């Protein structure tokens, strides 16, 4: 006989049994062993129909094709740049993926992107060995100049963005800042005229801290309103 051993939206830890029997299916962050389904990470359970999945509360970012991430250059090779991605793995940005103009063979690559520079890039390939290839060939990908970079838990990134980007656009509106959220937990904030980067940072940290509690959008809105006297 099959049964579910946990309730919806409860916190579970790795190795905790979520369900017994073959009637249920293991979803994201879970696995089946024998007839039981176990959790793979610390997170909140979410049961929909016969599928049980766990939404991670912590843990590192896992690179995926198509993700927009923010990374830092730490090395320059003959054919491109090596970057730190805020994961256990480094990424590679090839010259042909970095710029559309022609780059001569003997050109000084530091003139394009230097060591310690941050860029917003897209993951175009992740091999099974976790070799990551990046690209900047998109209008919304760029080299970061000025502003500030904030680091948050990468599992909270979806909450910072909100449904259809509602949270991040609200923070943008109240603080008058440009915000680029990297899926790897790095967020780039730069103020426009009369913008308030500090307030944007505070709001993002508030979202990170209270991401698991309901009514988040209203709370962040109240916070932003009270800080900006609106």
């Amino acid at each position, binding site marked *: 006989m099959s049964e579910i051993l946990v309730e919806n939206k409860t916190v579970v830890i790795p190795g905790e049994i979520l369900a017994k029997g073959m009637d249920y299916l293991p979803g994201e962050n879970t696995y089946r062993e024998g007839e039981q389904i176990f959790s793979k990470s610390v997170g909140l359970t979410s049961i929909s129909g016969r599928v049980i999945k766990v939404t991670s509360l912590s843990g590192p970012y896992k690179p995926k094709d198509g993700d927009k991430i923010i990374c830092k250059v730490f090395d320059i090779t003959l054919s491109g740049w090596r970057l*730190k991605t805020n994961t256990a793995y480094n990424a590679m940005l090839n010259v042909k993926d970095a710029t559309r103009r022609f780059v001569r063979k003997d050109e000084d690559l530091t003139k394009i992107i230097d060591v310690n520079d941050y860029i917003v890039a897209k993951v175009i390939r992740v091999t099974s060995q976790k070799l990551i290839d990046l690209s900047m060939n998109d209008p919304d990908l760029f080299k970061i100049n000025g*502003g*500030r*970079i*904030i680091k948050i838990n990468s599992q909270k990134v979806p909450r910072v963005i909100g449904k259809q980007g509602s949270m991040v656009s609200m923070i943008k509106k109240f603080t008058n800042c440009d915000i680029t959220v990297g899926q790897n937990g*790095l967020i780039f904030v730069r103020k426009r005229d009369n913008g308030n*980067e*500090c307030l944007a940072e505070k709001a993002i940290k508030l979202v990170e801290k209270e991401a698991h509690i309901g009514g988040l959008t209203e709370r962040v809105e109240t916070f932003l309103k009270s800080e900006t006297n609106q």
Partner: protein
Amino acid sequence: MINNTKTIIQLASEGKRLDNRGLLDYRQPIKIETSISKSAEGSAKVTIGDTVVLAGVKMSLEKPYSDSPNEGGIMVNAELIPLSSSEYEPGPPGIKAVELARVTDRGIRESHAIDFKKLCIEKGEKAWFVIIDIVPLNDAGNLFDAAGLAALAALKETRLRPIDEKTGAVDYKGTTDTPLPLLKETLSVTVGKVGNHLMVDPTVEEESSFSARLTVATDKTGTISALQKGGDEPMTIEEVGQIVDIALDKAKFLRSIMDECFKNKK
């Protein structure tokens, strides 16, 4: 890996910081809690903003060094545990931990803050040695100042253990009212240089953008007992002068918080 150097320099030229502080403002709250460990002879927990540092003092009876047979001694050890920052890894102390321990040690040792002669019990045979352990619980920057504050608070709090007259061993379960013979209260203030600007109490991001820093240890009278320069770039004589002035002023501020804490305790 976060580093906002350009923005930090630009903000500094306007007299601002990433978190809206002034260049010479400490983070708030600054808290000093003492007697937090039962097994230590003296202990303190210091909070500066998000930085939390523990210091514990243990006293042990040792044979004095042969070049100072009538004096006790001091040993400072710092451990940067992985709990405090994702930058630290388990294992033997790295260069940062060694520097933290040595800067704290030098401030106390070179100011002769402890009267080591009074720690001698039997010349050439037995003397009290003060062992200070520093453990950051959260490294959000400025460990030097926090460690200095915590070490001093723990030393002020320290009470010697009784010595068993028959065996001559320390009775670590007993307590006495004898405090450490503290002659001076040395505090260190670290001032960093970013671009051409000087700032105190850096966060981790600011620390990583510093081109140079200077830690100045001073006592109540304003006498400098130790200096430690870090970072790659040099400093001009004028800058060192400015830094010492800032450090003296900020040491006064930190000392007032320390005094307040011990006054409330009494």
